[in-house]
């Protein structure tokens, strides 16, 4: 075996080893498509009828990731917050409920007179990352934004609300 061929084989073996490690052994979420099931997910799933969208699938996984972001923000959006497990306010759920999120979603994309511009749901989420959890602004396409919107959609579906629905407080 020539030296060059041995080097090529070694490089391929290293690549294959990395892929196997990344997918099976790393535990890094970006390397596998399954979403980690955090405590409370099954109860949430049952309470908000997420099963309507199927037992599993892209949408359900996005909702579950949204759940993780919402209730464990410091863990799943660590790039976008300086808050840690030790802080008192360290998740979206520290300030909001899932219903809040759904009503905010159906009332979003309206003109805000204080800011003098139209504000989308995604703008609000990004603002929360930057200000409320003392962090950084994700792009509008980031799953850290998208999956919160999808979580809001799923909860809004369960509540059977539509555009402009107003919350009635008892």
């Amino acid at each position, binding site marked *: 075996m020539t030296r060059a061929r041995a080097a090529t084989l070694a490089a391929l073996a290293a690549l294959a080893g990395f892929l196997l490690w990344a997918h099976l052994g790393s535990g890094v979420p970006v390397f596998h498509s399954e979403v980690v099931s955090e405590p409370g997910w099954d109860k949430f799933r049952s309470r908000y009828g997420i099963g309507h*969208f199927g037992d599993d*699938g*892209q*949408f359900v996984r*996005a909702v579950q990731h949204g759940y993780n972001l919402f209730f464990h923000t410091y863990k799943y959006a660590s790039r976008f917050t300086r808050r840690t497990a030790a802080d008192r306010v360290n998740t979206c759920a520290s300030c909001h409920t899932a219903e809040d999120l*759904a009503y905010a*979603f*159906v*009332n979003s*994309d*309206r*003109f805000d*007179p204080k800011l003098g511009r*139209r504000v*989308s749901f995604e703008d609000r989420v990004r603002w929360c990352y930057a200000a409320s959890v003392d962090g950084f602004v994700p792009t*509008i*396409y980031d799953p850290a934004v*998208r999956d919160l*919107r*999808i979580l809001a*959609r*799923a909860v*809004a*579906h369960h509540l*059977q*609300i*539509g*555009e*402009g*629905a*107003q919350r009635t407080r008892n």
Partner: protein
Amino acid sequence: MPPFTAKLLRIALPALGLGALYLLALHMHAQRDDIRQAAVALTPGCVEKLARYDLRPGEQYASPYVVQRTGAKIALRGYSEEDVRAIQRGCNIINDTQGTLAKDRGRERWHATRFIRGSHASCDHCHQGIGDKQDAAGNRLKGSLGLGASWVQADMYDRFTGLLLPYELRQMQCYINSSNGYKPNIADDVIRDVTAYSRFLSAALDLKIANHYEEQGIDEIAASDTLKQGDDYIRGEAIYKEKCIGCHGAQAFGTFANGQLVAPALAGPNAWNMQSRNYFYYVSTILPGFICRNMPLGQENTLTNQECRDIAYYIGNLPRPAGDKQGPLIALRQQILMSVLPPLVHLTHSDATRSPQAAESVALPESAD
């Protein structure tokens, strides 16, 4: 030139260039703000549509459509004056994307034609009834691509792209493929105003988030929904000549009457491209579904599933632009086909008496539009 002066110029010139760009950006932002503040001149269709749903500024909004259909008056969050103008602009974009009814196309349609190749495409051609097609009794029609229903169903898994497709991204795809054009920015007003209008429609029709409604999307027709005679070009051509030619023209290049587009191109440079979902060889179920549920205008649901598939197959075989991702060779092939085939067909078809190159101008009945 002294070295110091040269060095100064090397720094000053780029700095001036950047400053000029910054000033230009400020000017354009101010111009956009002016347009957002300006009163909106509605198209006749939008005047009727928005008056019917009683769109006006206020603390609360209650849709007359919902009151009429259910007897229930549901109080929703009202719209500010700015929100109303955004909805009005969105309605105009859907109804008249190219701004043919506008005094100033650029200002009134956010230069939407920047994102469209050709002179035909308008959202309303596919999303009929300005994205809210109803029969005389006010029933929303199955497979009519209703925009309100699309908005409440957004973010679902899209089997064509493999994405959880946001509403804004779906609009971008329309510009790229159905209009054979270019992708607007997700935050562009041309996208956001259409979203505002679609969201308003969903409020006016009392649609609930993530529910499925019949008017959403296409009522797709697969080969298995037919008697399985196979999709036939000859049959498709014959039915096209009987049912479609009056509006869309002999070679499906669309028609104009009195300088206004009457029916859009189904083939040729002004038509959707080969990566559009309307293209039969890309997705074979969508165009037949659209034809069966929405064509011919005024005679919807009169064609059989097999007839719709035959027409779609025939249209799919007519020359059209290549999609952006298909590369220069296929683009070149399609350009050649679009240049060469129409004159040949014109020569060989005895009924093709008009110029095939330009959009045909025919005398049309008033009901054709």
